[in-house]
């Protein structure tokens, strides 16, 4: 369609992208995956004074004082004493694979509580611009539905813009002095986990945050790493042919009708359930490939591609993270050291997410400034009306979402949708074996994972959670029989 998107609309979309990514990554670490590594019950045994001392060595964060940590410990104690662990009820407390000292557990639990507040405030940015979160309502083909008019109170006003700036600014210290430090410390204290869970080391990521109306320049680069970081190939525009030509999906092992490898424009999605057969069809997820091979997507892929393309902030924060982790290793007297190669691992995926959060935060400040400067020039435009041409049109759109690279593919015939296929991040990572029977990222990453107790396969959860899976969000029903619904088979 060659439709251009006004600059203001690009910046507003970019600010939403950045704020949503930050919120999602913080929640993923503290609220969805930290409890695979942090033993909440053990935090009760922590010596609060020793915790304060440790915290001061790790970070200049001002809210790690004695009274605050004591209060956090008391809060946990009340919860544990009540016998109702609530949000912590499904943790594997006392599991042999839990290795952090009580003081680190207390510090992490304290930050778990603080992170609740920070994630909520940065999410307000998404809500202000997008009207609603997480399912924003302001996107339109050709721009955004956020009118800008300095003479009207009912549009995106200067007051709203400065409120957004305040929300962006106040989370910066938390990201750099708490989140990144906690991730580095947890990683350093579980050094063996930098050697498990690499899985598929082809990485795919797309450029994000366009800086011009045509979408040819981007704030954050993307591309493809075919196994070796030195062979990085950039993806450079929304019309990138290299990307468009090389995405395919296989359904050899998926419960869809047929057995083919097809390009998304030519695909169909016809469910065809049969028995679970680990030699045949065994998954509802299709198996996407890039250049005929599985690829891992997500913050690790994004960070490695940005790093490989020479993106300075990514290189800076990767170095800070690795230096912090090595500092912790030397603090505890370990001879192990981590490098960028340690990122190909379960802990690496978690670590890369914090690097990406810091990069997004810097870029968020930049995008806000670009928006304000552009409005200052008298440009209030946020929408170009699209015109759908006659005949058959094919097109795709991609986005570097918090869980990784997302692409939608559409065929439009005379103004009506003829085919629409989504190839989403968790499909890339969770996909079953492809038509050549090669293992997808989840499956490959579990090979070699240790399991201390087959009845409590915490280690499997660690690796699967490190991908930030998005596969069970449709049912919200209450089950009064309170039976164990999640049944994980160890293998």
């Amino acid at each position: 369609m060659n439709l251009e998107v006004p600059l203001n609309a690009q910046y507003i979309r970019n600010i939403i992208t950045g704020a949503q990514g930050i919120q999602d990554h913080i929640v993923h670490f503290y609220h969805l995956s930290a409890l695979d590594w942090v033993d909440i019950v053990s935090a009760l045994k922590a010596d609060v004074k020793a915790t304060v001392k440790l915290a001061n060595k790790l970070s200049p964060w001002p809210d790690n004082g004695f009274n605050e940590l004591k209060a956090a410990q008391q809060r946990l104690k009340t919860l544990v004493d009540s016998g109702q662990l609530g949000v912590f009820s499904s943790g594997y407390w006392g599991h042999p694979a839990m290795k952090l000292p009580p003081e680190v557990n207390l510090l992490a639990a304290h930050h778990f509580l603080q992170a609740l507040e920070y994630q909520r405030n940065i999410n307000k940015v998404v809500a202000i611009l997008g009207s609603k979160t997480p399912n924003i309502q302001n996107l339109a083909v050709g721009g955004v539905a956020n009118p800008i008019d300095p003479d009207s109170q009912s549009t995106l006003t200067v007051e709203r813009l400065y409120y957004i700036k305040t929300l962006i600014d106040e989370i910066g210290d938390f990201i750099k002095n708490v989140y990144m430090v906690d991730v580095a410390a947890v990683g350093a204290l579980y050094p063996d986990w930098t050697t498990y869970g690499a899985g598929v080391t082809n990485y795919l990521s797309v450029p994000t945050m366009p800086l011009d109306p045509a979408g040819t320049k981007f704030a954050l680069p993307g591309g493809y790493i075919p196994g070796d970081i030195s062979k990085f190939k950039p993806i450079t525009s929304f019309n990138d042919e290299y990307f468009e030509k090389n995405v395919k999906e296989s359904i050899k092992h998926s419960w869809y009708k047929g057995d083919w490898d097809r390009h998304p424009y030519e695909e169909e999605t016809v469910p065809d359930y049969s028995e679970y057969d680990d030699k045949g069809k065994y998954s509802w997820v299709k198996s996407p490939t890039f250049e005929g091979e599985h690829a891992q997507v997500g913050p690790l892929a994004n960070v490695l591609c940005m790093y490989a393309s020479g993106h300075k902030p990514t290189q800076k924060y990767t170095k800070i993270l690795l230096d912090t982790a090595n500092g912790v290793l030397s603090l505890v007297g370990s001879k192990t050291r981590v490098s960028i190669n340690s990122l190909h691992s379960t802990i690496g995926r978690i670590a890369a997410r914090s690097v990406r959060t810091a990069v997004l935060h810097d870029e968020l400040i930049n995008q806000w400034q670009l928006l304000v400067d552009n409005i200052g020039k008298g440009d209030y435009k946020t929408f170009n009306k699209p015109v759908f041409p006659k005949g058959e049109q094919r097109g795709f759109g991609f986005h570097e979402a918090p869980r990784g690279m997302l692409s939608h593919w559409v065929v439009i015939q005379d103004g009506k949708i003829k085919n629409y296929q989504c190839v989403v991040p968790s499909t890339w990572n969770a996909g079953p074996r492809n038509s050549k029977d090669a293992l997808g990222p989840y499956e490959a990453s579990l090979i070699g994972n240790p399991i201390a107790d087959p009845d409590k396969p915490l280690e499997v959860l660690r690796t699967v959670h490190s991908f930030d899976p998005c596969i069970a969000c449709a049912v919200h029903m209450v089950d009064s029989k309170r039976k164990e619904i999640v049944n994980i088979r160890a293998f």
Partner: protein
Amino acid sequence: MNVLVLGIGNILLSDEGAGVRAVEEFRNRYDCPDTVEIVDGGTVGFELLPYFEDRSHILILDAVNTGNKPGTIVRIDDPPAFLQKKISPHQIGLADVMGIAVITDNMPQNIALFGIEPKELSIGLELSPEVARNLSQLVDMVVEELKAIGIKVQAKNQQF
């Protein structure tokens, strides 16, 4: 007095959305004073937390799987105790939101869950006949509960 009436569920999955359908019906049939806020919580999780703050009472409406006949209505008086098991690996569910409300001291003294047993959970915008038939009973229960805590709701003059 500061009351939240919260409907939860996915309206794209038939009876899964019963809680949301019930708050829609409640809103259509009654006018409430400013001390009551009615919220369609849909399928969101964490974003519900701010709605829990500073409440005296929370009334949650949701589809509840009790193993009873479809359309059966139940009242659960201590939902946090009840929802001990985490069922979803990434989406923060109602149980987690309540769990977090507990540790952050945002849990009101009075919280109750009013549930209806679902029948159909496949893709569809319509409720099953069994659930649709009993939905107004669920709404009546909420009205009764509000009355019991001293809040008067006013039936709207319905024009057909």
